[in-house]
């Protein structure tokens, strides 16, 4: 990895890509808040937000502006530096994961072959884990520095939940990695293009992974860190203005990125189902196919975002001991069994 070989065009290309991906994630996160309210309204037979713009489409913009213009309050007894650092950290770690996700195959601009992935590192999936484990600190620092008992309890709950479910998540992925033999997300997608989606071979692994993703995103039924009726508002109780906005927003960015990870690992990533990309790119050009692939990935992501919202308005919250029970006594043994069975099948097939 010689960093001096990085030339100007490459740098500009990567900067543009990073800017584009961050903009897309933020806009999608913004409209997920809108979708959440609309879907909730639809499920509960209400109308939902419909005042700002046609169909209430400007509602997220109005919400964002409201948060920006609200008064910024830093509690007197809080730890000021950490109080500001908390939401910043939550947002940054939420965005960081997008670096290793392949958003599409490569496109050709001005004779340059531009890969639609910021960094194809050979430890891709481990990088995702590393960043996810950093995400705990946003919650913990925010909760502790508020100097509020409710916030502290919520922060500790959030952290213990995330580290418990990270275990099952890792174990469920080991089975997948045994099949792919690679940690690079791009390679995993390419293998799925040839050999069928991983969901066909790893349904149990997918289920465990999905449950853990819900827990990692602090979404219902695992939203104990922000349980309104027990902890007032959870770890962001003392926050106001855009600092609160960043916390709430980072949850939606997390949802978007996790949906992308799930689609990449188990649902073929930018693979268009039932279509041979190589043959298609000969007839309509590689660029169009790459864009179509991005569209396919996006459709899968939107489905998972819908699933997140659907589950939120369907399943009630777990009690805390039930949550820990599910994580440690059910998911981990299941993931271990899944791993063993996968290993045995691979051994048997190779014989």
């Amino acid at each position, binding site marked *: 990895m010689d*960093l*001096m070989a990085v030339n100007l065009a490459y740098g500009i290309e990567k900067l543009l890509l990073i800017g584009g991906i961050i903009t897309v994630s933020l806009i999608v996160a913004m409209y997920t808040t809108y979708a959440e309210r609309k879907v909730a309204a639809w499920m509960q037979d209400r109308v939902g937000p419909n005042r700002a713009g046609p169909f209430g489409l400007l509602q997220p913009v109005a919400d964002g502006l409201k948060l920006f213009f609200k008064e910024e309050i830093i509690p007197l007894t809080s*730890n000021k530096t950490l109080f500001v650092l908390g939401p910043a950290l939550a947002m940054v770690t939420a965005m960081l994961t997008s670096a290793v996700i392949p958003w599409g195959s490569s496109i050709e601009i001005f004779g340059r072959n531009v890969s639609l992935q910021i960094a194809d590192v050979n430890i891709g999936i481990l990088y995702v884990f590393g960043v996810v*484990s950093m995400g705990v*600190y946003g919650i913990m620092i925010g909760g502790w520095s508020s100097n509020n008992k409710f916030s502290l309890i919520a922060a*500790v709950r959030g952290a213990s939940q995330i580290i418990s479910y990270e275990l099952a998540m890792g174990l469920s992925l080991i089975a997948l990695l045994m099949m792919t033999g690679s940690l690079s997300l791009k390679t995993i997608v390419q293998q799925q293009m040839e050999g069928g989606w991983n969901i066909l071979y790893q349904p149990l692994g997918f289920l465990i992974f999905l449950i853990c993703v819900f827990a990692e995103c602090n979404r219902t039924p695992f939203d104990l860190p922000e349980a309104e009726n027990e902890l007032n508002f959870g770890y962001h109780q003392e926050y106001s203005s855009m600092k609160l906005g960043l916390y709430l927003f980072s949850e939606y960015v997390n949802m978007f990125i996790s949906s992308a990870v799930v689609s990449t690992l188990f649902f073929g990533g930018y693979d268009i189902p039932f279509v041979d990309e190589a043959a298609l790119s000969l007839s309509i050009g590689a660029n169009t196919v790459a864009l179509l692939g991005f569209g396919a990935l996006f459709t899968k992501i939107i489905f998972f975002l819908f699933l997140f919202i659907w589950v939120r308005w369907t399943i009630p919250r777990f009690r805390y001991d039930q949550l820990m029970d599910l994580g440690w006594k059910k998911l981990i043994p299941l993931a271990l069994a899944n791993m063993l069975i996968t290993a045995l099948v691979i051994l048997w097939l190779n014989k």
Partner: protein
Amino acid sequence: MHINEILFWFLTALALFSAMMVVFSKNPVHSVLWLIMVFMAITGHYIIMNAQFLAIVNMIVYAGAIMVLFLFVIMFMNLNAESEPQKSKWMKFAAVLSGGSLMLILIAALKDNEGFISSMRGEGSIGLIKNLGKVLFTDYVVPFEISSILFLSAMVGAVVLAKKDSSTIVS
């Protein structure tokens, strides 16, 4: 200056400064956060050495898992300057002496190590996951398995300690 060198000195300065702050911070929570910074800087060093797997494992295990548990305990203990027991002068003297001698041993052990220096230049590929896995599961498979048994026994021990003794519970 080569960009790797610039990064190396930046990360070294960051690691040393954060390590100093771990010791000098009055607030234990700040100490833990600075310690996380130290681990991050070391992760960066691993990446410069082209040991990506080691880097990310360092980040997940040390910065991600162990430090979260540290933070957990310290947040609950509510430590502050008033409740801290003052150590005697002799105790401090002994601590400085033992810490200093440990540093001396470490420097002596690493001073003439040529393999260490060459991997510092980012030339080796031993830190990549493929090579590391092969070495661990062929040349070092027995120590590897033994250390995993050690971990298992530690885990069982922790569970035994944490388990409530049914005879002492007064209902």
